[in-house]
């Protein structure tokens, strides 16, 4: 069975928090090249790994991973603020 593409915000979050691929890899217990594969969307993580990543960034898993292309975080924030108003 061919799995569908999973989009993610790992690289944006990692750069925003000043974490290197190697550091993130050590925290979530994978090889640093696996982080690169995840960021490029060339490998879909298991549910366990997806939760480890979301726990590391302290964000909901659906904010980091999606089956649809993710909007830029600034746009998400703007939409969220507009909804509140």
């Amino acid at each position, binding site marked *: 069975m061919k799995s569908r593409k999973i989009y993610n915000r790992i690289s944006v979050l990692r750069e925003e928090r000043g974490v290197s691929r190697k550091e993130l890899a050590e925290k979530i*217990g*994978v*090889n640093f*090249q696996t982080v*690169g594969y995840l960021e490029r969307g060339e*490998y879909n*993580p*298991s549910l366990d790994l997806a939760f480890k990543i979301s726990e590391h960034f302290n964000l909901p898993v659906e904010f980091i991973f999606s089956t649809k292309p993710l909007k830029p975080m600034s746009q998400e924030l703007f939409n969220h603020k507009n909804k509140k108003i």
Partner: protein
Amino acid sequence: MKREISKKNRRIVVIINYLSIFFILVFFYAGINIGWNVLIIAGEIIVIITAVMSFIYLHIRTHLWKLVHTSIEELDERQIQVRYESLRYSYSIFSIISLLVIFYHSLTIRGDVSFGMLILSSLIYLAHTLPSSIIAWTEKKI
């Protein structure tokens, strides 16, 4: 130290490695059948050195050998997936090559049913290096 090699270069080294194994057999059996002269001995030494160097460059320095032969506990989920996939392809390729070798041998035995030790050694080498060669051939980055 781990070394990153581009996919194109990895593929070239895979071809060089297996070609050098093939020519080790060619020079060896040429030496047995024609007689060991300087040219055949020099050729045999050159291809043995090429085989060893390409093996170290491709399998050891890239840590591919470790990826295929280390215990599962030391690998992450993507590496395990890559390893299983390479083993699946290796099994098929090795079976086909072994069957072809046996088929060719059965057509040319001329009463001698024994397999050359060097052919058997080459098949064992192939079985051990195929998974990491497949990873070297297919993976974008290693």
